[in-house]
């Protein structure tokens, strides 16, 4: 494993690991404010770990959860919740309920690798790709991330604008409210505080559960769909687009970059990997509950045979109002706003982390503004630019909303292969390389995503062949 001591020894010659030669300025280790903030967080973790008993373990879990829950609930973003809402409205209760649960299982497999990688190397994902594979492949990876993140950020602000539009809030004010919340979380200049504020906001994603309960879903049908995966949808172009959108709603490139960088920023070590896994599974469970609840919430639109094509957040809320009342519809719209706000925070942060990692500029939420100018500038620019685009009248942004999840699915296989190579790199991971079963699962995810992408391509450029395969 490339620990700091090993790297330093490689650069100045072989030395005993407990000593460091001070050959010049380069070898002098400087302690920064960022180190001190991270150390304070680690002291609390060490204190909780030193004690035994249920409450100490619960406290340890409380201290160590964060990146996993945030990445999973952050991915339940504006376009994702719209995809789930469209799924419920178009197909009702059936195949897609267990399918969405399966996609979150895929997300767990993928995200667990980023936890291990971050804890073992203390490096962000972009930094590792650049260092290990060189700038040529590194820049490809960064371009994919930058394009995907920016398109997704635009859709988050569309969701916020549409959700608040339900309450009569004008677009400019909706965007301003979102930016103010984003900056309120940042103003602490402490990773821990930022994480807790964002987690509190992300918990609001579960508002879709009471909305689903208000529709009085048939639990027998829900249980039946989980067991039998039926009724199956017809195999056609629309179904394929929903399948891709639902996959893209759970596994996307920004999640890899964000969770690894957040793991590093939080200061997790190899001792914390077990809790990192619990964090990831907990996040996936909460996100699955919210996603399934959204499908259930809009399933009555399917039962009433309402056409929900091209619905945005406000239209779904309005369509549901006769069924669940004004209060339920308001909760639905607020849920969409929350989804957009939390994702705009996490996605812009992932862009800022990646930029700092590849340019070797300071990149941490523990940085004071004066030391993290480039980090906070990138974060600000991403959010403000996406927010500004949403306010330009007449732009055909509906296509961005429809296709952003599809783009995410298409961009995942190249991103996953880098992750796959890194977690199997003995020189980087040491004894923490992926076991065979994890590689088989990860290989399966790459295969499924690639196959889904190829089917999408066939359905667009050769619809006749697609129809011959069984689709319409």
């Amino acid at each position, binding site marked *: 494993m490339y620990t*700091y001591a090993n790297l330093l020894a490689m650069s100045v010659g072989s030395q005993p690991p407990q000593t*460091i030669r001070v050959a010049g300025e380069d*070898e002098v*280790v400087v302690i920064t404010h960022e180190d001190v903030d991270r*150390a304070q967080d680690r002291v609390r973790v060490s204190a909780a770990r030193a004690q035994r008993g249920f409450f100490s373990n619960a406290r340890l879990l409380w201290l160590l959860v964060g990146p996993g829950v945030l990445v999973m609930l952050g991915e339940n973003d504006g376009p994702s919740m719209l995809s789930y809402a469209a799924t419920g409205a178009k197909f009702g209760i059936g195949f897609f309920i267990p399918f969405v649960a399966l996609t979150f299982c895929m997300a767990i497999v993928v995200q667990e690798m980023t936890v291990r990688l971050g804890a073992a190397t*203390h490096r962000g994902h972009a930094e590792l790709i650049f*260092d290990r594979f060189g700038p040529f492949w590194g820049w490809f990876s960064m371009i994919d991330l930058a394009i995907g993140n920016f398109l997704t950020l635009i859709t988050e602000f569309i969701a916020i604008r549409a959700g608040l539009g339900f309450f009569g809030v004008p677009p400019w004010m909706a965007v301003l409210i979102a930016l103010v919340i984003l900056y309120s979380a940042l103003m602490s200049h402490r990773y821990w505080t930022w994480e807790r504020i964002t987690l509190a906001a992300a918990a609001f994603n579960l508002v879709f559960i009471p909305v689903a309960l208000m529709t009085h879903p048939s639990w027998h049908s829900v249980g039946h769909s989980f067991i039998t995966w039926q009724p199956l949808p017809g195999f056609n172009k629309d179904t394929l687009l929903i399948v891709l959108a639902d996959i893209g709603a759970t596994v996307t490139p920004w999640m890899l970059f964000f969770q690894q960088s957040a793991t590093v920023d939080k200061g997790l070590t190899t001792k914390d990997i077990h809790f990192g896994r619990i964090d990831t599974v907990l996040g996936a469970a909460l996100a699955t509950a919210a996603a399934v609840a959204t499908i259930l919430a809009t399933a009555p639109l399917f039962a009433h045979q309402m056409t929900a094509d091209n619905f945005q957040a406000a239209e779904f809320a309005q369509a549901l109002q006769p069924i669940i009342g004004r209060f339920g519809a308001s909760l639905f719209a607020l849920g969409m706003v929350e989804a957009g706000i939390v994702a705009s925070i996490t996605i812009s942060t992932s862009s800022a982390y990646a930029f700092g990692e590849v340019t070797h500029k300071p990149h941490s939420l523990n940085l004071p503004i004066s030391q993290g100018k480039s980090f906070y500038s990138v974060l600000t620019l991403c959010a403000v630019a996406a927010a500004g685009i949403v306010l330009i009248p007449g732009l055909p942004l509906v296509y961005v909303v429809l*296709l952003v999840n599809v783009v995410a699915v*298409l961009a995942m296989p190249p991103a996953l292969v880098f992750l796959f190579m890194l977690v199997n790199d003995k020189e980087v991971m040491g004894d923490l390389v992926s076991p065979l079963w994890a590689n088989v699962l990860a290989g399966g995810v790459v295969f499924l995503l690639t196959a889904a992408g190829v089917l999408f*391509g066939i359905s667009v450029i050769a619809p006749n062949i697609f129809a011959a395969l069984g689709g319409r």
Partner: protein
Amino acid sequence: MVRKDEALRSSPGLSNADRSLVLSSLEHDQLVRAKKHLIPRRHLKGPELAVLWGLRIYLVFMMAVVVYQVWTAAR
């Protein structure tokens, strides 16, 4: 040769207590300064390069498909 803790110095405004806290709480490769040292580059083998190039071509092609779909939908 000096001991590890002797090689450390603090940014302005940080106290000895901060320094002790960092030394006792963080692993050495967690320090910000440790990240100045790059992880050595890996030599990519033929099959690895083939997979990376294959997926790169796949992605570029599929992005063109997406643009085509948007263009046809917009017409």
